[in-house]
């Protein structure tokens, strides 16, 4: 194990963390403001990736694809909110789970209908191809670095939006008291649609950016969705700050676990056993971390007031 390799893995973990943050931010906002658990958030991630891949393939421009991913995901989110989600706010979580589970079936099968079962591929734009040198002599892909920077910028922008703007003030008010903010004359329905579309756009952005590293296919949103759930549980549901800390924790713990555990285990068992055992434990690691955190703090690291 060299320092350069470890640094590269650490950066991969941070990159995964920022991706997860983009997903988790939307989930946690929707839960915090509307009290809704949305399983179909992963479908919006998939919509973003497919929109980006399709538009990039048609126009030849990744950047147009990226813009399309934001627009399509936000549009799909708004449509989802107006047609279905809106009717679920006053229902219990069980019904929300079932309805959004049904939405996943519809979105996944609908996408397969439109695009077929074969994965699409999305090329990294020429501007971001290549690698940068890291201290210690390693090379790190420029594109992944760009994802980290984008994630950090979005996180900063989201912080400013929520703490400094009128919309953010309303979102925070919606989190602490839904009835009161409606009574004060704020158009709560439009606010809900906006928050949902904002979360959807962030998920779509994440999907489009990851689409260039992995393949774009039906079902790609599901593993990420479950990771994002772990993130918001660790962070405390409803808390953006919690989502940020949780996302980076999960990203780094998962990546470093997969990298380090097989090597650590070679100290105790034979190398032939260490690899599968390390991989098995590493894939469970974030869930163990989550169980531990919940055992200590049942409402997550940064519990929301409501």
């Amino acid at each position: 194990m060299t320092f350069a390799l470890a640094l590269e893995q650490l950066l991969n973990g941070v990159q995964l963390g920022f991706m997860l943050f983009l997903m988790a931010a939307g989930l946690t906002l929707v839960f915090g403001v509307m009290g809704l658990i949305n399983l179909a958030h992963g479908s919006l991630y998939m919509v973003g990736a497919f929109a980006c891949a399709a538009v990039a393939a048609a126009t030849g421009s990744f950047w147009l694809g990226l813009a399309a991913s934001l627009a399509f995901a936000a549009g799909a989110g708004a449509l989802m909110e107006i047609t279905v989600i809106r009717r679920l706010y006053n229902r219990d979580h069980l019904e929300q789970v079932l309805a959004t589970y049904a939405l996943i079936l519809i979105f996944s099968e609908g996408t397969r209908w439109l695009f077929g079962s074969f994965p699409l591929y999305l090329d990294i734009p020429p501007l971001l191809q290549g690698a940068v040198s890291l201290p210690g002599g390693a090379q790190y892909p420029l594109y992944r670095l760009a994802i980290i920077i984008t994630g950090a910028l979005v996180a900063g922008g989201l912080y400013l939006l929520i703490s400094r703007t009128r919309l953010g003030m309303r979102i925070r008010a919606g989190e602490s008291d839904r009835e009161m903010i409606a009574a004060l004359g704020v158009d709560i329905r439009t606010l809900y649609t906006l928050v949902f579309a904002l979360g959807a756009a962030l998920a779509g952005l994440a999907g489009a950016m990851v689409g260039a590293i992995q393949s774009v296919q039906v079902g790609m949103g599901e593993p990420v969705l479950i990771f994002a759930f772990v993130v918001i549980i660790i962070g405390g549901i409803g808390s953006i700050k919690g989502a940020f800390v949780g996302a980076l924790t999960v990203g780094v713990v998962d990546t470093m676990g997969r990298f380090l555990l097989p090597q650590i285990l070679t100290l105790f068992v034979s190398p032939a056993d260490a690899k599968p055992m390390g991989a098995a434990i590493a894939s469970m690691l974030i869930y163990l971390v989550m169980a531990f955190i919940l055992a200590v703090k049942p409402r997550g690291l940064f519990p929301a007031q409501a």
Partner: protein
Amino acid sequence: MNREVSINAAMALALLAVPIIALQIGQTFTITLATRIAILALAATGLNLALGLGGLVSFGHAAFFGIGGYAAGILSAHALSGEPMMFGFEGSQSMPVIWLVAAVLAGLIGLGIGVVSLRTSGVYFIMITLAFAQMIFYFAISWPAYGGEDGLSIAVRNGFPGLNTMRPMEFFLVAYGLLMLTLGLFSLIRSSRFGAALQAVRQNDVRVASIGIKPFPIRLTAFVLSAMITALAGALYADLNRFVSPSMFSWHMSGELIVLIILGGTGRLFGPLAGAALYVILEFVLGGMTERWQFFLGLILLAVVLFARGGVMGLLAGKARHG
């Protein structure tokens, strides 16, 4: 006899009558469908105990379903290969032994998951149970000893004393008998003191605590029992397909179990059976009409949640007597 009881009896008889008729006219596939309905109904009845009576929305019951499946797969693999497993146990191909192992194992793991998960409530509970199931799912995928991602075949369906389970009808009767016994148990539990406490905990746990009953042990007991029943169904499901794979642990499976309960009617005795029957029939009919059946299944589920609250039992038998 009130309306719900007669509808329940009619459903129980119909589930028995259909395979018998199918056997007479040589429609073996229908027997397999009925067996699938009985097994899924059994799994959902397990979940119904926690979810319907106790209000514990577990989104991770696939964990127990899969544990049951792997218990069947692993025990019979060892019995066939003659290779002893842990503690020198030789494996088994006898269903009662497998069921016992499946239920005990799922009970213990359910106890562990329950102790941690029941510290939380609401959405946290939904997600933490999901996360535990995912943990086991990934473990099953990456642990190569029993097939890993590829799963494990069961060469010969496990046996039940006195029956030839390779015959579809006799295997159906095993599944049907177990389902009916479990429904009887569910009904007993529901009307017992424990059942009353469990339902009271669902309705208002603060009140229950204030009259001196601790909600936590009641919830935990319900969760563990529920896990054990779902594991039995998992063992049967493995025998039905003669194959187990990590997909039994997948979160789609957990979602499907919840779907069955809500389709049928949450907390109703025969809700899981009504839900499983409707689900399997829909899957079969839609699957025969279009390759895109999941799309339409999604639309139907959505319509049920939005417009037909109370599920099949709600439509047929009216509202449940207890809220």
